[in-house]
């Protein structure tokens, strides 16, 4: 009896491990496959590659359009991240620290774009931007991306502010610190992990955004996700795999930074 139930337990355990392995493989396979394919010597995407080379990385470095798109996307993500932090930080502090009627409603409205399909947002933004001549311009692109990064930022920052230790800001006030000093010396240092996380998230969201960029980048302003999209429409060579591999590594780097920041929070708070 006992032996039978132990065997059964062993079976269940094995099955659980297999299931977890299958799920991980399903989730990670497309990401991991990109790396061998990017070193393929073939002229088109195939598995397994018939030979190995670094020629698609060389091709990428010689592809002016991709390089320009990469530079633009990087700069755009940078601008968007900085602006997101500058706008969302005071907004989050105001929403978290003051109590007024309709505060919760306001938070819901501010974070609502998270729930909308980006194709709806993209279309709506396009309709407004066409009239203002913002399509295909840097200000237009930045504004468009802010629409999606700000709700994320607000959510993360509000959560971060909610986990600050109780009354430390009040305590600083009783010690003679002006509210601005309290923010600079107490609130800001304690919410640094949340700020780092917000920055990383904004950067990734902006850098990877396809739909809204497709709608409002126009033809003049080249962005990496848009250029990639157009590229694979006409060609199927492993160049896109090389670009993807670089993007995966970049994202991984940012996630690691975030993880460090979150770990930092665990040691700072308490």
């Amino acid at each position, binding site marked *: 009896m006992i032996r039978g139930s132990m065997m059964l337990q062993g079976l269940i355990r094995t099955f659980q491990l297999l299931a977890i392995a299958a799920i991980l493989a399903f989730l990670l396979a497309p990401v991991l496959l990109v790396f061998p394919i990017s070193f393929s010597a073939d002229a088109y995407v195939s598995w397994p590659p018939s030979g190995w080379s670094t020629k698609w990385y060389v091709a990428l470095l010689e592809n002016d359009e991709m390089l320009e798109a990469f530079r633009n996307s990087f700069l755009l993500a940078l601008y968007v991240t900085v602006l997101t932090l500058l706008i969302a930080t005071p907004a989050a502090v105001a929403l978290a620290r003051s109590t007024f009627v309709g505060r919760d409603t306001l938070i819901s409205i501010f974070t609502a774009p998270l729930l909308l399909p980006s194709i709806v947002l993209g279309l709506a933004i396009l309709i407004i931007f066409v009239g203002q001549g913002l399509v295909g311009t840097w200000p237009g692109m930045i504004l468009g991306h802010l629409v999606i990064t700000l709700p994320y930022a607000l959510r993360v920052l509000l959560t971060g502010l909610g986990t600050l*230790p*109780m*009354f*430390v800001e*009040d*305590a*600083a*006030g*009783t*010690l*003679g*610190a*002006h*509210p601005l*000093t309290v923010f600079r*010396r*107490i609130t800001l*240092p*304690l919410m640094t992990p949340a700020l780092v996380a917000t920055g990383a998230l904004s950067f990734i969201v902006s850098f990877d955004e396809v739909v809204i960029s497709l709608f409002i980048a126009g033809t003049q302003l080249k962005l990496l996700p848009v250029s990639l999209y157009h590229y694979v429409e006409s060609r199927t060579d492993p160049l896109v795999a090389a670009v993807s591999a670089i993007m995966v590594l970049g994202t991984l780097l940012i996630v690691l930074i975030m993880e460090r920041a979150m770990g930092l929070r665990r040691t*700072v*708070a*308490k």
Partner: protein
Amino acid sequence: MYLKVDSLEKRYGAFDPSVSNLSFSLAQGELLGLLGPSGCGKTTTLRMISGMVAATSGRILVGGHDVTGLPTYRRNMGVMFQSYALFPHMTVAENVAFGLEMRKHSKHEIAKRVESALAMVRLNGVGDRKPRQLSGGQQQRVALARALVFEPDILLLDEPLSNLDAKLRDDMRNEIREIQQRLRMTTIFVTHDQTEAMAICDRIVVMNKGRLEQIGTPHEIYETPATPMVADFVGRINRLKGTWRSDGAIDINGSMTIRASRPGARGAPVLVMVRPHRIGLVASGSAIPSAEHENVLAGTIRQVTYIGDTLQYSVEAAGARILVEKATTSAGDPFQSGAEVLLHWSEQDTLTFAADGER
């Protein structure tokens, strides 16, 4: 009077006020307790005095100056929080130095005063550590040092002992009192623990539902409580309902007669309260010492509870249950459940309240 709180009121929206018509004052160097059950408005009062919460109406005066409109950072009051509220990203020394830095003292001066403040709370040598590396009791001392180092006009303590374990709590309580007296610091001490308040406060304000119930010395609060709520809150007590008779005695259920030192109006309903440890207990048939001013009642013991330092007897007398407490002795328990006994207590220990005045 150094600190004056005058008709202070706090309202949140259309609800009943959290604090209303609250007035009291403190002499320089006095330690005043704000005592009451949770939700009675004592912490709100403290937060209004420190400026963290704006008063709806009323005034707060420090040394004759109206500070009601001043922001917290200009009030010069040291506050110790229940959760300590130490800055987790700063060292102990940086925490203590913060108030001095805000006052733009020189580096040298700050270092000197931080060191002596840490010495005052017996925490020499931990200045370089982060608060989370200290024990709860040590964090508490850091919070006290931080609140005192800049020589505030008033020290406000918000339930400072409730996060400590029982033994540490008594030590810390006495230490706070000792430091407060040495510095002659005008202090308000918020607590829900009557023992704590009694032990160290010069005077106590008892609050209930946002109002002041009574203000007085610990002795006054305990011996002559102004309301049934105060009598009930500051220690265990027996309650009996009765009616004043024309001869100045109190009739309870028509089966018991009690005398109090202050008679009331004839026929008026009255609430009688007696502390369990002020009631004497002798075997039925024994003589009562100095029986003239004593209330004497025959009863039967229904339950005996031994709790180490005291024995609690639940006695059935004249249709009511009366709790009696006696200090234990090594000789053991003189009365068993079912024993016939006489209860007796003096007229002075008989507290009476107009029954309709009960809140």
